[in-house]
């Protein structure tokens, strides 16, 4: 057998093996999370290596504990879910409101400083959030915005804006200018063109950006920790979960139930929109 044949056959098998390996490392932690969340802690301590739960062992008591309000002896996750929902949805909508006109302008209109704007976004995207965090911490403390969800929404908008504008801009650039020009000849103004022509055409891309923004805002931890830690009734799911582990008496199974509640919305959204999202994120990457 020549080298080509040996390599081809070896790589074919290696490839299958590697794919299986990848599936194992990426899916197993999530499966493990789910399994632990429905096992009683006593069973887990007896047999920590089990990956299958006997049917009789299944319990949802962990979820009940996590979701119940603090007064009822639970961990109050329903409140956290509501907070996270409010923050993520409003951050998404406001980001879109700001990003759509911005992206349109950057992609279509020649104005003073257009090239600099592009650079500015890249710089913002890459700038350490810890540097921004300190003065925001100071300002929010003084303005009484610390402990309010509004301050958090404001920060999330600034964090998601650069990528949102970038993704939308790439999409707007693929829409033929002639379509807009014919609308202009028909007497539509600038805003009319955006609303009647560009927006409907960009709908899939806007959807992808909305999903991206929602995921970032839902998952975010650092700013939530910095701004909300003193106000337990304002905690987001991420923050609530992270502080749950500080309490020694909380069993690991309850912790995992909380993790499932935090992860599930994101995973569902992601699998429902995977294609849309990945194409939106990497369009333009082919250019090198």
């Amino acid at each position, binding site marked *: 057998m020549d080298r080509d044949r040996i390599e081809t056959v070896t*790589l074919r098998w290696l490839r299958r093996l590697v794919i299986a390996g990848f599936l194992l490392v990426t899916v197993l932690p999530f499966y493990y999370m789910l399994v632990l969340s429905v096992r009683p802690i006593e069973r887990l301590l007896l047999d920590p290596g089990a990956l299958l739960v006997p049917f009789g062992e299944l319990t949802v008591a962990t979820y009940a504990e996590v979701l119940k309000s603090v007064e009822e002896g639970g961990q109050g996750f329903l409140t956290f879910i509501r907070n996270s929902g409010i923050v993520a949805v409003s951050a998404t909508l406001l980001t879109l409101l700001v990003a759509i006109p911005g992206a349109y302008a950057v992609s279509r209109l020649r104005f003073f400083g257009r090239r600099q704007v592009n650079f500015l976004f890249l710089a*913002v995207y890459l700038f350490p959030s810890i540097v921004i965090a300190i003065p925001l*911490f100071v300002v929010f403390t003084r303005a009484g915005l610390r402990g309010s969800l509004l301050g958090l929404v404001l920060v999330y908008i600034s964090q998601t804006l650069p990528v949102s504008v970038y993704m939308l801009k790439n999409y707007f650039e693929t829409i033929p200018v002639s379509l807009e020009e014919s609308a202009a000849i028909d007497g539509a103004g600038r805003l009319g063109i955006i609303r009647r022509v560009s927006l409907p055409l960009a709908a899939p891309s806007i959807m992808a950006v909305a999903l991206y923004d929602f995921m970032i805002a839902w998952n975010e931890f650092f700013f939530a920790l910095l701004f909300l830690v003193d106000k337990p009734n304002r905690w987001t799911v991420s923050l609530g979960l992270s502080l749950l582990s500080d309490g020694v008496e909380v069993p690991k199974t309850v912790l995992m139930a909380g993790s499932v509640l935090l992860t599930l919305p994101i995973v569902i959204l992601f699998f429902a929109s995977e294609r849309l999202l990945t194409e939106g994120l990497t369009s333009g*990457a082919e250019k090198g």
Partner: protein
Amino acid sequence: MTTTAPEAGRSPTRERPPTGRRPVTLRQRESRAGLALVAPTLLVVVAVIGIPIVWTVLLAFQRVRLATLRKTGLFGEFTMSNFDRVLHTPGFADTLWTTLLYAVGGTFGSIAIGLVAALVVRRPFKGRTLVRASMLLPYVAPVVAVAFVWQVLLDPQLGLVNNWGQRFLGWDTPIPFLSQDSTALWTVIAFEAWRYFPFAFLFLLARLQAVPGELEEAALVDGATPTQRFRHILLPQLLPVIALLSLLRFIMTFNKFDDVYLLTGGAAGTEVVSVRVYQFLTARTDIGAAAAQAVVLAVVLIIFVGIYLRFFTARKEA
């Protein structure tokens, strides 16, 4: 504000009579519309990012504590004492070194794994969409949740890894991966590589799929084996993307806070600069020192990126 200057230079023949105002050209209207539409974006970016950055630098040169915050204005007395304190506090150099190791390790790991992942799912096979989607899971899942799963998985008492390690791999005692100095940093780096390989994977896969098929076919006809085709055809095509990814991931990892904070809290030799800044800010409420640390972090980062860009652009020209 507008583009009047080049406009005027370009069309001297269209001079209007001096009486009456110059009408607004289409080009000017476009420029105004552009600025108006981009204004909200700029406003948010400047207010929530730009001003804070400048302010951090100002704070770094002042003595500010959370308790005295109400008394200090934007421009207090300027002093170098914060930097002095920060640079001479024990452990600062260690933290910087840890951050560097963490950033380089995480960057290299995530790109290497991402490259392998992109290569194996490049060609269609049954269930490819599902495999591709699962590979993105670590990246899209909330950091708090995945950090906890790792903690539980690696737990010495009830973790799956130690249980299986003892049962199947013959480990004598459970390994406290996240709490002993010899393994903690490596574990955190492994977590980083695991969580961010999908990012590299996405971009490398997109680039791989844009490589023209003729290139590889020609190499095949010339008798190139699969590894040769990778080495001489695909890799050169991927290098620019890899270079860009290295830069992006390095910057991101260098500043990373969540992952280390959640996994170890900065214990067992994993304290990175951003975790230290956070501790100065909240536990010691020493805002001046925290700002000084953040400025040092940003400066070190800018230096590294500068060196990298210099090296990279120099090689490109050669």
